[in-house]
């Protein structure tokens, strides 16, 4: 049905390798599946990829998003209302895989996955064409029952590191991680911030001492200027709440997909401009 296979390294590692060769940071937009509808999500994925998204995080809506600020909470509520259940999301992803090979990561909370069944979810997600899983409330200490079937099915588990994570702990987490590490840029929940934290670059540099995996940075990044700043030192920039807000503002309009695409293009331009192109590389 598609070209996905169950052997590492998968699409995520391959994408980071290509980008590294071009000296370019990845742009990872986050959108909640089903916001405002699964049909729109499919169109959004294709448009965001066309406009410069390198990987895409698909939010799996949950009734109790404990690590999300108001913008993503409302996006999750819209996704739930639109019927974006795990089976419906995976069906949409299967369809998407006929049209795109962009790496796709499911981003969500543990209970819907636990309820679906870790083994079954990993098998079904891999078959549908998902590349990685990021489960916000599943720290490595609790992740074994998901990590085992994930590895078996060639899915990366993306772990979060936070400003509160001690370096020794980061080292241990990095050892069990694959794909990339996700550094949470703020001590706080998701949501746009006016300013990036001052020690962000230093913190990411410090993490380089404990891992060779690519390091993505997210939570709070909402403008092209901020994306550019982060791209100077991180391997990937994740932008979520800002997109949720754009989608919300455009909720009843038909140009939602184009609007989101333009925003993503502006983010990617800023990210490209942040570093000199590798000699001989073509963007």
């Amino acid at each position, binding site marked *: 049905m598609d070209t996905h296979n169950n052997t590492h390294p998968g699409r995520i590692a391959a994408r980071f390798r290509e980008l590294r060769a071009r000296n370019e940071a990845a742009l990872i937009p986050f959108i909640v599946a089903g916001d405002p509808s699964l049909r729109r999500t499919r169109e959004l994925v294709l448009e965001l990829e066309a406009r410069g998204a390198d990987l895409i995080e698909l939010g799996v809506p949950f009734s109790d998003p*404990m690590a999300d600020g108001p913008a993503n909470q409302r996006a999750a509520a819209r996704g739930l209302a639109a019927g974006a259940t795990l089976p419906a999301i995976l069906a949409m992803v299967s369809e998407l895989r006929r049209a795109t090979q962009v790496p796709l990561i499911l981003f969500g909370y543990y209970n819907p996955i636990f309820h679906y069944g870790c083994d079954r979810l990993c098998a079904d997600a891999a078959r549908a064409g998902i590349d990685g899983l990021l489960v916000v409330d599943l720290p490595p200490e609790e992740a074994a029952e998901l990590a085992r079937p994930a590895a078996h099915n060639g899915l990366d588990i993306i772990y979060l590191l936070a400003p509160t994570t001690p370096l020794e702990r980061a080292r241990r987490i990095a050892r069990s991680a694959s794909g990339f590490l996700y550094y949470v840029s703020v*001590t706080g929940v998701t949501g746009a911030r006016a300013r990036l934290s001052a020690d962000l670059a230093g913190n990411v540099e410090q993490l380089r001492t404990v891992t060779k995996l690519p390091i993505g940075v997210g939570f709070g990044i909402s403008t092209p200027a901020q994306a550019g700043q982060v791209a100077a030192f991180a391997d990937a920039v994740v932008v979520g709440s800002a997109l949720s807000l754009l989608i919300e503002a455009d909720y009843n309009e038909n140009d939602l997909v184009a609007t989101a695409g333009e925003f993503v293009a502006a983010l990617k331009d800023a990210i490209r401009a942040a570093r000199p192109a590798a000699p001989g590389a073509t963007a």
Partner: protein
Amino acid sequence: MQKLPDSRGRFGQFGGRYVAETLMPALFELETAYQQARRDPKFRADLKRYSAEYVGRPTPLYFCANLTAKLGGAKIYLKREDLCHTGAHKVNNTLGQALLAVRMGKTRVTAETGAGQHGVATATMAALFRRQCEIFMGSVDVERQALNVFRMKLLGATVTPVDSGSKSLKDALNEALRDWIATVRDTYYLIGTAAGPHPYPMIVRDLQSVIGRETRRQIIARENRLPDVIVACVNGGSNAIGIFHPFIRDAGVRLVGVEAAGLGLSGPLHAATIAAGSVGVLHGNRTYLLQDEMGQIRETHSIAAGLDYPGVGPEHAWLKDTGRAEYAAVTDAEALDALKALCETEGIIPALESSHAVAHAIKLAPTLPRERIMVVNLSGRGDKDMQTVATAFGVTL
């Protein structure tokens, strides 16, 4: 018998630490601080002194002669947690955790609250120990527990209404966790029940176990033996685990938890998690939850705001699965009848939450022989519920 929770915070398959990475180091810090504190004579002495002089412990164990005679079955005793300062058992937990917060140098204390009893108990401790205090409360509960909202404000706390989701206790908990993710360095999150991520279920249980230890001493002094049945209402399960825990090894003592059946278990409007739930992960622990077939958390209902939560503490899930405790459910209407019955027979106005335990005791007592002994944990007093009760009885205040 193995000591639980284990080092991973598990009671069998239940419990654990299912939280965002930002909070993990704080949970380890809390666990270490608590393990040190519980062994520290100074901490233990402070806890004991404030329990006696400030909270009013030990609380009486009262024999209900009238109710017992009326029902004609087992002897009914009430453990009078309603006589604690602030009006409920919640203060046993907030006192201990507030002392821990002071020890850890945390300048701000936060909590979620449903009925407002835990919010009041937290605000009280914040006033006593001069901490900043913010209480998160679902906007539906802000309305139905207006008196407690006023008490919290009077005590100097900020009360933040939570408008997301079902606007009640689970959403207040979500918001308290979100706040903690952003403020974890200087804030002590003071959870109000024996749930949440490890080590909270253990800490809350240990602090509430004073109820069961006293009950044990008191019933032996009075009856020269252990009780046959202990009944307590269960939401997250702190008052129940507090009175159950010192009796867990006494196989002859029946432990009965009572959940809120709301408008009845045949419909969706209840909060009987153990009776009608399935295993899942919410608010940091694996436990029984009320959820739909996709793992989305269901909205709940109980006339008692303090029982209106779709989860239950992990130790209760474990006690249920091992068969050591049994769990029943009582409807809004039965709880109201029990509240009235206790007022009329004993002159005691129980909280709506505690009325659930009383209602089950009223059902159970007549089925047992007269020489049997039953202890009901009267977790709180009903003053806070007068508006709700009046409305239910069709009275305008």
